[in-house]
C-alpha cells in the first residue's frame, strides 16, 4: 500500500518536473538559425513587395507587438534589419509597411475604426492618407 503511494508520488513529481522542463526549454528557444550573416546597417534594404513580412493572420493578431519590437529595436538598439521566416530582409520601419500597402490609403484606418482602436502613431508619423 505504502509502496504504491510512494510510486504514485514519484510519478507526480516526475510529471510535474517534465512539464516544467518543457516550459523552461521552450522559453529559451529562439529559432532555427543560430549564426546571422554579416550585414552592413548603412546599406538601405530593398523591400520585397510580393509578400508581407508574415502571414496575414499572424499580422492581424500581432502587428502591435511587431511594431513595438521594431520601434525599440530601431530607435534604441540600432538593429534595423528584420529577417522574416522565409529569409527576406526588411527595414524595421513604418515605411516598410506603407511601402507595400501603398495602394490603400485607408490601410490602417479601416480595421482600427471598426475595432474602435485609436493608436497615437499618426500624431507623429505620416499616415497613408497623408503620404502621396
Amino acid at each position, binding site marked *: 500500500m505504502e509502496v504504491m503511494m510512494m510510486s504514485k508520488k514519484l510519478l507526480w513529481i516526475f510529471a510535474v518536473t517534465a512539464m516544467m522542463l518543457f516550459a523552461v526549454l521552450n522559453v529559451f528557444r529562439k529559432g532555427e538559425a543560430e549564426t546571422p550573416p554579416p550585414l552592413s546597417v548603412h546599406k538601405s534594404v530593398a523591400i520585397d513587395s510580393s509578400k508581407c513580412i*508574415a502571414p496575414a493572420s499572424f499580422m492581424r493578431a500581432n502587428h502591435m507587438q511587431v511594431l513595438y519590437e521594431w520601434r525599440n529595436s530601431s530607435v534604441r538598439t540600432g538593429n534595423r534589419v528584420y529577417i522574416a521566416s522565409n529569409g527576406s530582409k526588411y527595414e524595421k520601419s513604418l515605411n516598410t509597411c506603407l511601402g507595400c500597402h501603398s495602394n490603400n490609403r485607408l490601410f490602417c484606418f479601416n480595421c482600427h475604426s471598426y475595432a474602435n482602436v485609436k493608436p497615437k502613431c499618426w500624431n507623429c508619423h505620416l499616415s497613408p492618407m497623408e503620404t502621396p
Partner: protein
Amino acid sequence: MMNEQRREFIKKTALGVLVGLGAASGLVPAFSLEKTVLPVWDEKPVPGKIRWGMLIDTRKCKEGCQQCAAACHHAHNVPDFRNKKDEIKWLWQNPYQKVFPTASQQFVSKEIQDRSYLALCNHCAESPCTKACPTEATFKRWDGIVAMDYHRCIGCRFCMAACPYGSRSFNWQDPRTAIHDPVTTYPTREQGVVEKCNFCSDRLVKGQQPACTEACPEQALTFGDLNDPRSDIRLLLEANETMQRKPELGTKPSVFYII
C-alpha cells in the same frame, strides 16, 4: 492524512506550473502557446566603436547665411511658430558671448564679435540630460549620438533644465499647425515632447552626411567619426586650435569650433 498532503502538493505545483507558464509567455514574447515565433536576428551594433562629432569652422560662416538651419529644419519637419516663446530650433546662429559665455569676454576682436556661431545639441559624451531623464527617453546611443525616443518622452522637461547649452526645445503646442513646408520622408513630433538635433541619424543610416553639413555652401561643417584617427574631422582637429562650449562642466561635448 496522506490525501490532504497530496491535495496540497498538487494544488501548489499546479499553481506553480501555471504561474511559470503564464509568466514565461508574458515576459518572453517569443514563447507563446500558439507557436508563431518569427526569428529575429540580433545585429546589435558594437557600442562605443564609432563616436560621431562635428567641427564648425566659424571663419567660413558668411554673414546672414542660414542655409544649414533651414536645411535641418526643413528635412525634419521642425515647426516655425514665429514667436520666441514657443519656438523650436535644432540648429541656430548666436553671437559669441551666448555660445561661449565662460570664455574671456575682454577685448574680443570686433571681427570675432561680429561673427555668427552655430549652436546645436553637443551630443555630449557625459551628458547631464541623459542622466536626468526619468524614463530614458533620451539616451546615449552606441555611436555617441544623444538620441530622443519620442515614444517614451513624458514631457517633464527635466532634460531641458539639465542641458547647460539650451539645446533642447519643447512642443508647447501641436507642431503640425506650424510646419509650413512639410516633407514626407520624416515624421513630425507631437504636442508634449522634447526634441533636439539628432545628428541626422536618419540620414546616417542611409550613408549620407547630415543635412546641415551637406547644405553649407562654404563647407564650414565637418562631420565624422571622432574615434577614427584618420577621419577628416580628426585631421582638422590636429591641424587647428579648437574650442568647445563650457568645457569646465565636464560634459565632454562632441561639437568643436575653430575660431
